[in-house]
């Protein structure tokens, strides 16, 4: 696999959307290519940063209770 092909598949690899064969090909390329591995680490890190920044909001307790009463 060339770096360009790895780069094209990187988002889907980070998202765990490649099939087993494709994922293995990308994994093998990453293990032998420090630059692509660096890029992969960055993209995976970016995804975690977005997730952790946005998933800390939870529904207010009072709202949860209000819904529970409305729905029961």
């Amino acid at each position: 696999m060339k770096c360009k092909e790895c780069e094209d598949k990187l988002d889907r690899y980070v998202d765990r959307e490649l099939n087993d064969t494709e994922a293995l090909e990308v994994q093998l390329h990453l293990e032998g290519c420090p630059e692509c591995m660096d890029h992969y680490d960055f993209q995976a890190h970016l995804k975690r940063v977005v997730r952790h920044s946005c998933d800390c909001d939870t529904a207010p307790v009072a709202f949860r209770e209000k819904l529970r009463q409305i729905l029961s």
Partner: protein
Amino acid sequence: MAESPARTAFAEEALTHLDTLYRGALRLTRDPDQAQDLVQEAYLRALRYQHSYQQGTNMRAWLFAIMRNLFWDRFKGSRKEDVSLDDVGEFVLYEKLRDEGAKPEADVLDKLAASEVVSAVEKLPPLHREVVLLVDVEGFSYKDAADTLGVPIGTVMSRLHRARQQLQKSLYDYALESGIVRGNGMMGPTQVPQQ
């Protein structure tokens, strides 16, 4: 009036997904009061149409679909803002930072304030924002996201690609403005030089 055990069980299961729905509504409306109204309406509609929910399928995705459809019903006038996603071209933050010599690139991500990341997500047009919410924040597969949004997987992938480019551009602009990076390379003044 006594409620049936089936209705109560359905409501209880549906409420286990409240945080996902609330977060999604909050990011879509950008307003806590509107988010609560939207979520409440979504739950009432879900209860009304619970017969259409197939046991064993993805209830979280089903509920999210109801919520986002209500959002679009309410705010369909704003749909036109979705054609205005800035054309940032092929913007890859990693490559931008690497070309400017900001090593290691991931250090820049650790310096971004969570509020700025949220702000960058909320700046995305809703059609692109909701894909990021589903895939990046809530961890939906492309297929589940496609089913939730009622679009083909290819559409999810293309929206996600464009959304991420825009998001990375916004984060880069913020990093520049706040001095985390300098446009001509390397790190900003708040970073400690590597030994």
